[in-house]
């Protein structure tokens, strides 16, 4: 306490700063593509980076005890913000995701990542260790389903998906029994394998064996079996509830050549951009895919492709290494924290970051469908950048206070 900077993780700090620089360079190049900085999105990003650095420092300085105190409140405010979007939000391209604040547009679903994370950390850390963990799992599920659902109906499938994944990681880190996690994963596995009956049956079998070994409860086995089969059967109906563009994205992912104009076009052009970068890249502002606008969404979802085209494998590996540094250091930090809330916050941030980075980057290299998840610290967008700078501040704050109880 006497020396709060003691333990400040310089590697994380360095990685964050370099990543925001990477983001600025990439944004400059995509902004430049639109004609001599005509769209000026680079300048806005510059402002947000500056604001973000300030916020990061402030957040890092705040005692985490206070944050813990207000975590539940923050969670509640997040839900209110999501409801507000649905009521007074701006509709753009068929989705209601933004609240207009005059000069800026706020995307609350980004900030809600923090509030939900804090809420979950508070819940899990505060749950009596002696009590059965079933109640904790149910409570975490309930806390997560609310924002997930509200974002899903905006609709914003990509962002919504991140929440249950984050919850899954945090519950895992928080120490719920393995069979709880297996049960949570069950619907996902049931839906994904429902296309093929053999696969479906094999997945069920494997899951049941694992569940039995982990829980030794017959009731769990029976419930799991019923739920698995029912979900498998209900998936076609579920499918019909998806938006046509979401269906298309998923179908396109299975067979990208089927629709070379739509979302497959984005994946194809992104792969071309990344692949054509080669070992050392085409050079700053010399990426043809980026500069000639063959790369769609070059400053948001596919900004990594723009980077990869210009700076090649070496540049891509650098970004990968920076994110990996945060992941590695973050997990280490979470593991040595004395305070469970601190530990869960760190683990949550690292999980969320890693999830988003992987979802985005796997998409740009054609290994995942176009989900619309931005790349932390790098993609254009104030809401996303400020959210991640806050996260970085939290992580750094935790790193300075890992000895606190």
């Amino acid at each position, binding site marked *: 306490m006497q020396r709060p900077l003691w333990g400040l993780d310089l590697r994380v700090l360095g990685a964050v700063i370099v990543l925001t620089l990477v983001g600025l360079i990439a944004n400059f190049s995509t902004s430049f593509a639109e004609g001599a900085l005509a769209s000026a999105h680079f300048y806005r990003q510059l402002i947000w980076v500056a604001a973000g650095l300030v916020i990061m420092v402030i957040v890092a300085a705040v005692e985490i005890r206070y944050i813990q105190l207000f975590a539940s409140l923050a969670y509640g405010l997040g839900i209110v913000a999501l409801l507000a979007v649905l009521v007074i939000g701006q509709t753009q391209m068929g989705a209601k995701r933004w609240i207009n604040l005059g000069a800026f547009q706020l995307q609350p679903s980004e900030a809600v990542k923090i509030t939900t994370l804090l809420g979950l950390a508070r819940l899990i850390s505060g749950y009596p260790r002696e009590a059965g963990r079933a109640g904790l799992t149910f409570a975490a599920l309930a806390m997560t389903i609310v924002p997930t659902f509200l974002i899903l109906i905006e609709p914003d499938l990509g962002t919504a998906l991140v929440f249950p994944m984050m919850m899954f990681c945090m519950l*895992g880190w928080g120490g719920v029994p393995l069979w709880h996690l297996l049960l949570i994963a069950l619907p996902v596995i049931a839906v994904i394998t429902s296309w093929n009956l053999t696969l479906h049956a094999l997945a069920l079998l494997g899951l049941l064996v694992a569940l039995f070994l982990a829980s030794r409860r017959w009731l769990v086995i029976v419930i799991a079996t019923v739920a698995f089969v029912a979900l498998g059967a209900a998936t076609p109906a579920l499918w019909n509830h998806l938006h046509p563009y979401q269906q298309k994205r998923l179908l396109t992912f299975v067979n990208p050549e089927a629709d070379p104009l739509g979302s497959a076009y984005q994946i194809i052009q992104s792969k071309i951009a990344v692949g*054509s970068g080669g070992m050392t890249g085409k050079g700053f502002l010399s990426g043809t895919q980026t500069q*000639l606008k*063959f790369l769609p969404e070059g400053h948001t979802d596919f900004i990594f492709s723009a980077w990869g085209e210009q700076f090649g494998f070496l540049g891509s590996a650098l970004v990968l290494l920076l994110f990996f540094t945060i992941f590695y250091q973050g997990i280490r930090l979470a593991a040595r924290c004395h305070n*469970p809330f601190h*530990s869960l916050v760190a683990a949550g941030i690292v999980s969320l970051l890693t999830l988003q980075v992987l979802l985005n980057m796997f998409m740009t290299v054609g290994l995942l469908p176009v989900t619309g998840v931005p790349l932390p610290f790098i993609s254009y967008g104030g809401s996303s950048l400020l959210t991640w700078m806050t996260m970085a501040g939290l992580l750094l704050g935790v790193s300075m206070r890992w000895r606190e109880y």
Partner: protein
Amino acid sequence: MSPRLGTDAVRLWAFRIIGTLLFAMLGFRLFHLQVLHSEEYREKADSNRFRIIEIPAPRGAMRDRHNRLLVTNRPAYSCYGVPRELWRDKRSMELLEQILGFTEGFLPQELRPNRGTFAPVRIKRDLSFEELSKFEELRDLIPGAFLEMEQKRAYPDRLAPHAIGYVSEISKEELSRWPGLEMGDLVGKRGLERLHDAELRGRNGRRVSVVNAHGQEVGAVERLRRVEPIPGRELWLTLDLELQALAESLLVGKIGAIAAMDVRTGGILALASAPSYDPNIFAGRVNVSEWNVLLEDPSKPMLNRAVQTMYPPGSTIKMAMLLEGLESEAVTPEWSIHCPGHFTFGNRTFKCWRKGGHGRVSALTAIEASCDVYFYRLGLLIGVDGVHRAMSRFHLGRLTGIDQTSEAEGLAPSEAYYNKRYGPRGWTKGFILSIAIGQGEVLVTPVQMCAYAAAAADGKVWRQPHLVRAIYDPVTGKVATPPPPTDEPLNASAENIALIREGMRRVVWGESGTARGQRNQEVHIAGKTGTAQNAHGDDHAWFVGFAPVEDPIIATCVLVEFGEHGSSAAAPLSNLLMRRYVLAERGVEPGLALAGDSH
């Protein structure tokens, strides 16, 4: 117990291992794309940004014997579209349809197969001025379309459409037969355009420009990659522009054909067929309705009657018959017959064209007065194979090999032919009577008859008619001569040849000549009239001739379908042509000479 969470080593390592594996996977994937397969993706990126536009090579011109232009090119604008870009913006597609006058839904249908590609597709050739100005006005609304200047065929005097032929877009079937060509290329379809397509075509060039994702050109950065087109070679023809124009004007309102030939070389001076058509119909894009009108016209204006249509030659064949009779010594010049106006063979009576008969007729008078009875008798003496030999000597009923497409062969019947057609006992010697006077199954083309007249005029050699005298390469400046025509000696004695030529002279200058009306003192012509019996209507009129009699330089053949009499319908046209040509060769103004003596 420590209150810390997550120190459970299993969980810590589970997080670490799973996370590290996922990062490693990503790294591997990046290595795969950016290092192992980067070349492949670099090519794809290049094919995105480089637009390759063909620069069509100017097609070779065609010139007449004095190097005056018959066919040339002039600039025309084509509209191209980038399928992906147009497809993405349905409204621009509709707008383009309106500008170019397509029906709604035409473009989506045309572009559907290529809708994902950036490679431009030619949407319409040869835009009209109105279409061009509308396009220029609205081009900002249609970023996926652009104009390219190309060349189209131009015919300054619209002459000789049949001989020249035409070009149009390559068909699928031709595409598979001719390597190195692409969809949308223009190729010769008929006539000289077809025969000399490879020389005329040249080689297309290429222009490479850089385009953005909207298909807009952002610069022709790749100057080095530009490949200049190689212009096609020129065809230098033997045609005489003025004579061709005269021949065509003489046939206006008629159905028929004219061929004129340089006696000394075999070069075709004029080759006309009527009814005719305006070659400009094919110059740019083919107007479907005009094309259908041409195809469905019962008088078949697309047909080159001079080369592609066969007719019985009528009395014009008689010189060939007489020459065979003399050469085979079946008759002598002095041998004579009595013509009472008819000839009885077996139980049938064959008429002479002159009811009252010709009286005593020998070789010269038989030609001069065109006595049929003389040739009935002569035919019986030389036999069917004699008729065949007589015709073959002059390439009648045989392909001449003229440099034109779809030449008709005709028919020079022989005993073998009749045996095959009717069986060995199915025909009688009586058949010979009609073919000996050029009726019945004998079939020839006007160009064959022209070469026949030229051979008679020359006296020594049958010359293969041809239209191309040289092929000029504008790149190297070299003039190549086509393979020499296959000329053949006539194998006839000079006296016999002199006799039939004298007969032809007397057709015009003798007191009972059938073309006495064509006498003029400036240019002495010789020839032979003919009337081909026609089962479908009035007889066809023939005239074959040459001029000047003293030293022939031009031979002509005129055929007028349903013209009835060679002497009135065909001979005057022939006379006009030959007189005009000979006078022009002598340097005399032909217009003045014409006025004086038209009988």
